[in-house]
């Protein structure tokens, strides 16, 4: 009875279903790199958006799917950023012989990212452990504390440049690389969501006692979701470190964590597409406001700066309004395609 046939879908053979999206993404991203790669402002903007998407989608695995409220995500990004940044700084003039310099650089860049991600994942494991005992507000406080601890540690470590941070990190990031990691994060989140693992996470979110009674090892799943989530946060941080001229502890404060939380709450806790859309909107909004207000005041940037300073109150207001009008967020736990009109072929939740 375990040899049930795989339901045929859209004629994609089972062997290819795993790898096909990756190949498609590689093709599309190469095309995008070729078309837009020479346009620095666009690349910068989409990199910022990309990092926000990775952060939001990965936090959504913990907060949305597993229902554990973590508000220290910027801490994990900081771990990734500083570990990857330090690595790239130390090895920036090392290259592999026999391959083109650009290729060798990219290889080291990926290595740096993975190191940053793994370091963040290790931290996620450490923070995940108290989540075995704490829930709700208490867990939130622990994660918040963790984020601050990371920041303070970086601020007082010579290797990480203390309060000045790291500068001169080789700018190896590209549209392709950011896009590829965004793709990997989203793919991971979606595939987890529609597998046994995901169902166990949803179950923990819905009712921990019932999940435990149905044979779900809740502690193990909670820790694992923390680890996965912080790994991608580390990657996001690592990417960030490779396209901004300087990283300092100030880039990873509590405010940054809250921005990410606002994104996933606005998008709907548990909705990957919601997190993506909210991440794009909330990242582009300040940029757009800056441009608009600079234009309004005739090229004078001071008004724009003032508006930029009240960004958080604006976020807060946005969140209050959202909670009043649509408490479940933009999409609730649904995905974009669940909400599209009938004529669009629907996909049921839980079916990959």
């Amino acid at each position, binding site marked *: *009875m*375990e*040899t*049930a*046939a*795989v*339901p045929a879908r859209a004629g994609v053979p*089972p*062997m290819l*279903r*795993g*790898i096909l999206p990756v190949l498609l993404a590689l093709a599309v991203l190469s095309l995008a790199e070729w078309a837009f790669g020479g346009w620095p402002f666009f690349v910068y903007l989409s990199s910022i958006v990309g990092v926000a998407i990775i952060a939001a989608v990965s936090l959504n695995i913990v907060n949305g799917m597993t229902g554990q409220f973590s508000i220290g995500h910027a801490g994990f990004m900081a771990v990734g950023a500083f570990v990857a940044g330090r690595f790239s700084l130390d090895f920036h003039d090392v290259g592999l012989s026999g391959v083109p310099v650009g290729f060798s650089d990219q290889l080291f860049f990926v290595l740096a990212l993975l190191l940053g991600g793994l370091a963040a994942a290790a931290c996620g494991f450490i923070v995940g452990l108290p989540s075995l005992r704490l829930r709700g507000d208490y867990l939130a406080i622990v994660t918040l504390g963790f984020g601050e601890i990371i920041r303070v540690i970086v601020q007082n470590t010579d290797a990480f440049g203390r309060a000045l941070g790291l500068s001169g990190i080789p700018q190896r990031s590209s549209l392709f690389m950011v896009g590829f990691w965004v793709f990997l994060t989203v*793919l*991971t989140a979606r*595939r*987890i969501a529609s*597998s*046994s*693992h*995901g*169902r*166990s996470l*949803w*179950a923990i979110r*819905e*009712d921990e*006692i*019932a*999940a*435990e*009674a*149905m*044979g*779900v*090892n*809740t502690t*193990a799943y909670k820790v*694992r979701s923390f680890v996965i989530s912080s790994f991608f946060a580390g990657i996001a941080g690592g990417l960030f470190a490779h396209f901004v001229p300087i990283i300092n502890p100030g880039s990873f404060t509590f405010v940054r964590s809250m921005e990410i939380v606002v994104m996933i709450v606005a998008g709907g806790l548990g909705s990957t597409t919601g997190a993506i859309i909210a991440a794009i909107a909330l990242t582009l909004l300040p940029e757009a406001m800056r441009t608009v207000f600079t234009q309004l005041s005739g090229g004078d940037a001071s008004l724009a700066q003032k508006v930029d300073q009240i960004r958080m109150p604006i976020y807060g207001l946005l969140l209050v309004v959202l909670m009043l009008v649509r408490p479940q967020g933009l999409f609730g*736990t649904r995905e974009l395609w669940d909400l599209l009109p009938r004529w669009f072929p629907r996909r*049921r*939740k*839980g*079916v*990959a």
Partner: protein
Amino acid sequence: MTDVLLKADQVSIQFGGLRALSGFDLELRKGDLKGLIGPNGAGKTTAFNVLTGVYLPTSGEVRVGGQRVNGKKPHQINRLGLARTFQNIRLFRALTALDNVKVACLADEKPVFGAERLAALHAKGGWSGKLAGGFEAWNNYYDWWRALLLTPGFQREEASLTRRAEELLEVMGLSHRRDEEARNLPYGEQRRLEIARALGTRPKVLLLDEPAAGMNTREKADLMVLIRELRQRFELGILVIEHDMKLVMGICENITVLDHGEIIARGDPAAVRSDRKVIEAYLGDSYLESHPHVGTPGAA
């Protein structure tokens, strides 16, 4: 005695000064259908919680399939073949009926290290137990990678999980609710979905905590038939907590009566019904005084 699936031996549990359960014992074999009744606050649900590992007994011993489970986590006890439903329905409300059952079907077939081998290693304890823990972790990560890569094996397994969950929904008469969110189901169907979910874990023993609460007479009658069928079809031992006397008396072959955490009577329905202590617990001793011949053998 390996055919005793569930055995509680002199189990007591104390919350501070309150003795919620004392000297509780119970044996359940394959094919048994036993009832657990008692007035409100008698300790019935506490007994369930001790058996399933939610509470750690203060003294005494619980064995599932011959294995001592004191101090084991609920999910481990569940894996040994003990599944339950809840008095206050605890479905995964935002998930569809199908997904509710699929959660329970989780890790049905372990691909690398089989559940039986792991259980054997665990039973040995010591280094073997640690090794088994490592294998389990490996299994989980292996599962995870298969999910990420959407390997054909994973897709097959997912399809077979779906099919099994659909079968269970059909058994419980819920096929038409397959894709509806659990919270939108009517009360009686939510109760049935809880049973379907419990069956998903492939239990040997099923504990039902007030399965008929909130159902109408018709639904209760159907449920009685269904519970009997389940016992046959899945070769279960079933223990039912129930307030509805007609239901308990109708289906259970053996009834245990709890009051203030202690067993006050046990036996077949007729014997329990005419037991003086039981009547006293349910109706008060003033009732007995005014009806002197009630509760004596041969009367009623």
